């Protein structure tokens, strides 16, 4: 009897619902300790003073505060940099795979130079040294810095994806008489991108996170607004916890969208993704061959 109830208790204890509740309770306990710890140091929480800076409700409707303005700038910079990073990634990956040694050398040099220095130093270098010489504005500098940095990492991922496309696909494409443009855009890229999508999404998450660094060159993004707010109101913890939550919301939603795109298998994927050709799902290859007709027909 006791044996049975112990077994059923164990079953219940390890059920997904119970595990979820236990994790939430543990996290809540951790949070409570943190909050109490701050009070122990003599910090008084004043969340109510933070909300006007987030936004205010009035008869006219909702007026966003400076933090939401900052969030808008962060989203804007992230989107622009994402476009810049995609261009950089494709260009560098193609140069890296090009038959010409000069192109390969050039892309290797760019990739190494960017990967071997911290982003914050690159931003300073671009903003304080290159931008005044070339005559670039603040926003373009930030977008170029972020786009170059993330693009270099994405280029290496993309290159791995392109190399993972089976040789047969190239040969099939050529024997069908596809132009190089069609070969790349219809056959190679779709498969390459799909193979490394998890890693690319990770890079996108990194881009949103790293965009916080543009605050160091006085761009009014979320982090800059938060810093100014802290300097003005001294609401240190309220502001930073709230800002962290906003960033989590952004990066989390990107991960969520990507997992929807990819299907359930990507949920547990590693950074770097799966480079093995076996990772290429057959459906996309089949779809590609259906589109161009099979050579047997």
């Amino acid at each position, binding site marked *: 009897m006791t044996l049975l109830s112990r077994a059923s208790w164990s079953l219940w204890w390890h059920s997904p619902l119970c595990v979820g509740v236990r994790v939430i309770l543990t996290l809540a306990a951790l949070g409570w300790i*943190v909050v109490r710890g701050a009070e122990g140091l003599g910090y008084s929480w004043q969340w109510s003073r933070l909300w006007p800076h987030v936004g205010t409700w009035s008869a006219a409707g909702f007026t966003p505060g400076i933090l939401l303005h900052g969030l808008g700038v962060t989203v804007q910079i992230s989107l622009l940099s994402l476009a810049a990073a995609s261009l950089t990634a494709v260009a560098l990956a193609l140069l890296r795979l090009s038959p*010409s040694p000069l192109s390969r050398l050039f892309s290797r040099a760019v990739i190494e130079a960017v990967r071997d220095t911290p982003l*914050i130093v690159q931003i300073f270098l671009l903003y304080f040294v290159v931008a005044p010489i*070339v005559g670039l504005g603040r926003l373009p500098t930030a977008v170029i810095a972020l786009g170059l940095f993330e693009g270099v990492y994405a280029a290496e991922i993309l290159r791995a994806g392109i190399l993972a496309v089976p040789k047969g696909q190239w040969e099939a494409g050529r024997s069908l008489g596809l132009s190089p443009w069609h070969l790349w855009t219809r056959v190679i890229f779709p498969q390459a991108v799909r193979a490394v999508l998890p890693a690319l999404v990770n890079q996108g998450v990194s881009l949103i996170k790293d965009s916080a660094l543009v605050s*160091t060159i006085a761009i009014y993004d979320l982090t800059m607004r*938060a810093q100014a707010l802290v300097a003005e109101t001294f609401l240190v913890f309220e502001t930073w916890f709230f800002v*962290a939550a906003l960033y989590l919301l952004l990066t989390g939603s990107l991960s969520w969208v990507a997992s929807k795109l990819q299907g359930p298998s990507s949920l547990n994927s590693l950074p*770097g993704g799966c480079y093995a050709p076996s990772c290429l799902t057959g459906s996309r290859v089949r779809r590609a061959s259906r589109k161009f007709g099979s050579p047997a027909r």
Partner: protein
Amino acid sequence: MNPSPRNGRGFWGDLVLVLALAIGAGWFLFRITTQVPYDWNWPALLPYLVRTEPELAPGLLLQGMAQTLRLSLWGGLGAIVVGTMGGLARVSHSPFWRLLSGVLIQGVRNTPPLVLVFLGYFFLADQIPWLATAQHAARQTTGLWRLLLECAFGPVGQLQSLLAAASILGVMEGAYVAEIVRAGIQSIPRGQWDAGYALGFSKGQILCHIILPQALRVMTPPLAGQGISTVKDSAIMAVISIQELTFQGMQLMATTYRTFETWIAVAAIYFVLTATLSSLAHAVERRLERGQEV
């Protein structure tokens, strides 16, 4: 592998590339010589690299580089501890630990480092009393101990902030190390576990003596990459006034106004640091691969 074998395109592509680079460089030179007057003064930077008065000693930038290396070393060690615990929790049998560690790791990985640094600096660092105790104890040391301590942790007065920053860095990088550890453990075939159980080993013994030694070989390249990232990511600690290379660069700019020289020099030092570390890591990797073949 060579995806586009047609040589003619390679030639024209090269020509375009060379032309574009030449035009870009030419325009840059034109701007820098005529449009934006800046009186370059590299010798002014020298005393900040190596100072000669009153005696030969590392200057501000080299001190900063040393502090960057110390911060990366302790942060990296912290990351290994955090990452191993996190990675083991991720492959635990208990769904509770898997979910809890998963949530915490994803939380850290999805928050900007800058925000984590601010939160950690103002918030968590003060709630760890042993940091203050360590600082107090360090002040009491003299002689050889003091020398050793300063070698390992830099100026004693900055010990507390260095340890706090290293802890934050350890958590930030640890979240990535955890995934490397998890992948490493999961890359070992189940049969190895079964064999261990069959031989009557306990779970801990199997992990220590069978699984981890094999997993380590898989984990070495990504761990080396993460170590190099740690050096670069430590630059962010400048925003909380840890006196590492980037911070010293900012200080230098604030006192000498030699903006251009300062940032070019700082970037060059980082480049040399990480390039050296990468080639070291490559050498170790090749050594390991050769070891595996024998």
